[in-house]
């Protein structure tokens, strides 16, 4: 599974990355978490407000406020 965290480097973007990694670890799924910081690439992925979360090519979250850890787990589980 491929999980993309998209954000240029704001505080919330780091939190989102942490959330994604923690969720992956706690669920014990096989997944790579990729951080995308290039603004052109963020836009290309269809994210207009950061941070964004894409699981297996599907936009699961965009913008503030951040989802809870439970919600992120649900998002990842849904794509297994």
């Amino acid at each position, binding site marked *: 599974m491929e999980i993309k965290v998209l954000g*240029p480097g*704001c505080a919330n973007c780091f939190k989102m990355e942490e959330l994604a990694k923690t969720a992956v670890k706690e669920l014990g799924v096989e997944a790579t978490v990729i951080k995308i910081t290039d*603004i*052109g690439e*963020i*836009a*290309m*992925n*269809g*994210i*207009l*407000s*950061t941070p964004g979360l*894409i699981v297996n*090519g*599907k*936009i*699961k*979250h*965009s*913008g*503030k*406020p951040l989802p809870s850890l439970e*919600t992120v787990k649900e998002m990842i589980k849904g794509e297994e």
Partner: protein
Amino acid sequence: MLKDFAHYVVYSLFGMEQGRLAGAAEFFIYDTIKIFFLLSVIIFIVSIIRSYFPPEKTKRILSHKREFIGNILAALLGIVTPFCSCSAVPLFIGFIEAGVPLGVTFSFLISSPMVNEVAVVLLWGLFGWKIALIYMGTGLLVAVVAGMIIGRLKLEKWVEEYVYNIKSLGAAVDIAKQTFKDRLLYARENTTEILKKVWIYVFVAIGIGGFIHGYVPEDFLVKYAGPQNPFGVPIAVALGVPLYSNAAGVIPIVYALMEKGMSMGTVLAFMMAVTALSLPEMIILRKVLKVKLLVVFVSIMTVTIIGVGYLFNAIL
């Protein structure tokens, strides 16, 4: 009722003697409660409205919209669409890629930081609802006019080429539908977050108000920046352009200037220049706009804001 409460706290609870200090304390308590109440209620309501307009939806609404209607919609959506300057670039690219005209995109980018619920509530609480409405109305006017001028000038060539080459990967959007309860939770969280950011400015504004009310002569600024000085507006705008602050941060200064005799139009123009134009935002936008377009943007905004300042000095 609130006035009675402030009166009770000052004279009965604290047992203060009638006088200047007690008057100031009463004013401080009354104003603080009033403004925080307004802020909490209005931000909460706006947050709920906001949850219905994520940028992705705004982009769809504005895509291929005609001039004028598009600019008006963009300026209005700028009020409610959540947006922070750190997302200005992906937002800009996303809008252009979705076929939102350049001028319409600018109307959105201009209105978003300048006209928002925090600015309107603070102006309402400190100066009355008329001033708040005037600020909101003229802010939208500036966003529409400046966006239309940029659209007419056909400046698409001064947007960095790579912006046009970005093709969306067409990722499927699979964001869970929000229930009304989700929206309420979001609104609560958003309200707390904004209050945490602005409370200090509100206290400073009210404190300054009380302090300079008593100690700085009333007409201190009239000589320099009153309605009689024809250069008051351009000077205020020229000072405001490089300064940067959000609407809450500029409020204490605005309050002080107004108290000391700077005319209404000049103060509003100053506030718009501070919130709408800033060096950090220009640096961020430089990633998608060529320097020429940035210069044109800043110039058009400066002239439009000065125009608004004169207009209000003339009619108020």
